């Protein structure tokens, strides 16, 4: 039987494809006639926010993206950064927010699958993964179900595929109640002379379909990922896809074998709007036309229309331009791995994107225009307001400092995430030097004696909400700090910008301001943005999420024998605060959790100071003065000290010069670290900091089995641990008290 590919183009149909009037006019001009149904689908896929970045492009261009270490910046499947000795690290972060809210397990799983594919499409073997998660408030009825599904899905895919998950974030906030965030990061390792890109070269060459068969999965998914949620969410359900990590693992091995065989000219994974985006990308990049014969596409469902095949988001698929003489060898590799391999098209010199189905032409469009001439908007935006500073005396001190500290480290946003990361394989590949629980994940560079890579994912949404510019800076600065704290030199970063509806000037303003902050920080801290992803329209019934520009940073450790950890301080070590006494309590967890308020400005970041202190701490770690190190972030100095005590099992005796005790202990002033130093080196360390002009304070020593701070805090480490470890398991088991 033949499938009907025709369908009248009505105004409603156009609207349902998320195409507005002007856009449709432009489509008519470029198509030079009324588009066919299949063509309309293709245009909408290429022009929706998800694929075209039409609202964000203008601003993304302002981010610093190069540096001597950058091999490929944004634009490829993932960023590529030189780490020396002929090795490169390939990484990117991507969101799967909407699918994960609809079907948490599969949504999160396919999110991980997608980002892994982005990395190995370029020829890199994935070596590390992270996941940045934001959920609604714990007592929202949906939250527990979403947490368990998302975490199981991330583990289910990553563990089976075989990549260690070495870091991430989990936050809970009311503003994510109807729109959670699942941002997945992956990094891979490759040789600098064996990187593959999507730019096709050569006319008349076979275009090959690789991997799993095509079904109706996610037809319209790309359109959904850019649509605001409303109560009619159920209708969107069929677009959820099921991931198959087993096939993905086979695809990885097959692709790496294929690349080694020299058969690959260009390769591109099929992500959103699979066949359409990948084919157009290859052609447009290489100034070539592409002709596809859909009758040759491996399908797993009957009577699929051209429209469905072109927009299907079935997972674990790739498109490749092949060296013809290598076809048999290439086919053999894919047969060995039990994967489909089909020549489905050819490259042409006419710059047309031509689709045949059942021996009929169902689409014939200008490929460059599809790829490059997507609309670009300068959406109206308003500069976000800022808050005047708030002095410490404006904040009530706690009645009991020990109780406040215990409460904080046992609160949803500060408690241990062990329940989460023990469901992830953190050890596979035998290279994990630091697993979750410290400041950054660290993995060895295989084949290298001493080199290692560090990974951290960071953003503090409540800061961004209060001041998008400072919040943007802070996200990068905290990422920088987490890398430094392990002894890594920050190299570059990827971003995942999660915001609400960009058609609202306030939201657009937050977006613009945070990008300005991110850009300045990346510039000042030498961390260019080499890849990224934008997720807009994160709103439910008109309420937007907290603005959440997640930053994924990568750093290099030349010799992991000189690496620092959070928990390696030894009895008798001297504890130094790098930085000064805290005074900033606005937008802190102390304010939110203890005082029940969220107001005022976030702590500002002085980027020059950030860099100076970072370089000082890095030097101290590299020269092995630091027996342990931890940056000070959420919850301030007291929480950071508690985290070090819990990690080492030792107590600490601290005597601080204090003006405002609650600010000194819980203030979240930026650019600060705690460094533990063997007492025989303590004076030397102090002298060095004097010399380098970095402010520091000798705050105490590692001792006993309790954390003691002046006459304010005195808590047994065991007690801290219990409070820290108990919330998550309790919450997930549905027990009260969580």
């Amino acid at each position: 039987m033949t499938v009907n590919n025709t369908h009248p183009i009505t105004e409603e149909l156009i609207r349902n494809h998320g195409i507005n009037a002007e856009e449709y006019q432009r489509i008519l001009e470029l198509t030079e006639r009324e588009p066919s149904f299949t063509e309309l689908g293709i245009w909408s896929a290429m022009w929706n926010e998800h694929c075209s970045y039409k609202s964000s492009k203008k601003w993304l261009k302002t981010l610093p993206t190069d540096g001597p270490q950058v091999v490929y910046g944004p634009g490829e499947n993932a960023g590529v950064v030189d780490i020396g000795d002929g090795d490169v690290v390939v990484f990117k972060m991507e969101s799967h927010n909407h699918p994960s809210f609809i079907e948490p397990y599969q949504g999160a799983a396919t999110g991980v699958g997608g980002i892994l594919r982005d990395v190995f499409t370029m020829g890199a073997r994935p070596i590390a993964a992270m996941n940045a998660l934001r959920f609604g408030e714990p007592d929202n009825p949906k939250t527990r179900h979403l947490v368990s599904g998302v975490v199981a899905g991330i583990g289910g895919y990553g563990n089976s595929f075989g990549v260690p998950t070495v870091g991430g974030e989990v936050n809970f906030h009311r503003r994510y109640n109807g729109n959670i965030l699942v941002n997945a990061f992956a990094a891979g390792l490759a040789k600098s002379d064996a990187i593959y890109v999507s730019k096709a070269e050569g006319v008349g060459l076979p275009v090959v379909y690789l991997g799993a068969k095509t079904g109706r999965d996610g037809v319209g998914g790309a359109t959904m990922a850019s649509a605001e949620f409303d109560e009619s969410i159920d209708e969107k359900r069929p677009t959820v896809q099921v991931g198959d990590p087993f096939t993905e693992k086979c695809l990885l091995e097959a692709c790496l074998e294929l690349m080694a065989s020299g058969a690959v000219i260009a390769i591109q994974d099929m992500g959103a709007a699979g066949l359409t985006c990948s084919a157009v990308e290859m052609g447009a990049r290489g100034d070539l036309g592409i002709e596809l014969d859909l009758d040759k596409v491996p399908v797993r469902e009957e009577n699929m229309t051209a429209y469905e095949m072109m927009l299907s988001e079935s997972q674990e698929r790739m498109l490749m331009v092949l060296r013809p003489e290598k076809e048999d060898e290439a086919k053999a590799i894919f047969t060995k791995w039990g994967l489909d391999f089909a020549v489905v098209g050819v490259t042409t010199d006419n710059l047309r994107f031509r689709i045949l189905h059942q021996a009929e032409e169902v689409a014939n469009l200008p490929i460059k225009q599809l790829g490059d001439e997507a609309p670009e908007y300068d959406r109206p935006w308003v500069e976000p307001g800022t808050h005047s500073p708030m002095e410490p005396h404006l904040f009530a001190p706690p009645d009991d400092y020990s109780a406040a500290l215990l409460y904080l480290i046992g609160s949803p946003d500060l408690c241990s995430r062990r329940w989460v990361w023990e469901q992830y394989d953190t050890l596979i590949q035998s290279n994990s030097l630091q697993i979750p629980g410290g400041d950054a994940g660290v993995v060895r560079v295989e084949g290298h004696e001493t080199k290692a890579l560090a990974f951290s994912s960071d953003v503090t949404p409540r800061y961004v909400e209060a001041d998008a510019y400072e919040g943007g800076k802070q996200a990068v600065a905290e990422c920088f700090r987490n890398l430094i704290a392990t002894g890594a030199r920050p190299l570059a970063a990827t971003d995942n910008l999660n915001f609400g509806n960009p058609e609202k000037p306030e939201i657009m303003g937050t977006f613009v301001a945070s990008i300005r902050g991110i850009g300045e920080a990346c510039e000042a801290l030498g961390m260019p943005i080499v890849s990224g992803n934008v997720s807009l329209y994160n709103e439910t019934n008109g309420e937007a999420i907290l603005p959440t520009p997640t930053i994924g940073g990568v750093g290099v450790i030349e010799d992991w024998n000189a690496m620092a950890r959070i928990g390696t301080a030894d009895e008798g070590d001297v504890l130094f605060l790098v930085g000064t006494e805290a005074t900033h309590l606005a937008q802190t967890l102390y304010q939110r959790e203890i005082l029940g308020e969220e107001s005022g400005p976030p702590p500002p970041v002085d980027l020059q100071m950030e860099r100076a202190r970072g370089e000082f701490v890095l030097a101290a770690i590299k020269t092995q003065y630091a027996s342990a190190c931890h940056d000070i972030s959420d919850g301030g100095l007291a929480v950071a000290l508690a985290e070090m005590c819990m990690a080492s099992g030792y107590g600490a005796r601290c005597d601080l010069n204090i003006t405002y005790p609650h600010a000194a202990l819980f203030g979240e002033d930026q650019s600060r670290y705690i460094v533990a130093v063997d007492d025989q080196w303590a004076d030397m360390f102090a002298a060095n900091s004097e010399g380098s002009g970095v402010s520091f304070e000798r705050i105490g020593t590692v001792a006993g089995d309790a954390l003691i701070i002046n006459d304010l805090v005195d808590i047994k480490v065991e007690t801290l641990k219990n409070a820290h470890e108990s919330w998550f398991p309790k919450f997930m088991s549905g027990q009260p008290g969580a």
Partner: protein
Amino acid sequence: MADKQFQAKVFVTLKNGVLDPQGKAIEGSLNSLGFDGVDSVRQGKVFDVALSATSKKAAEEQLSAMCEKLLANTVVEDYSITVSG
């Protein structure tokens, strides 16, 4: 009115068109084990539920509520129920 005991079977299967990686793998394995008569395999779940309810009808209502709430992931799965007892 006293409750009666019922034995129910709840079948949870993937919706048509939803990819079934397990079924696919099993199909492949059966073929390579020489069962070449096998055309397709889809894997689903079956729950044997013992429950007490006032009537068969009440039991069925409870069971479909259980499916909606927990047993089935209605985003990708269908369910069917048979009650005996």
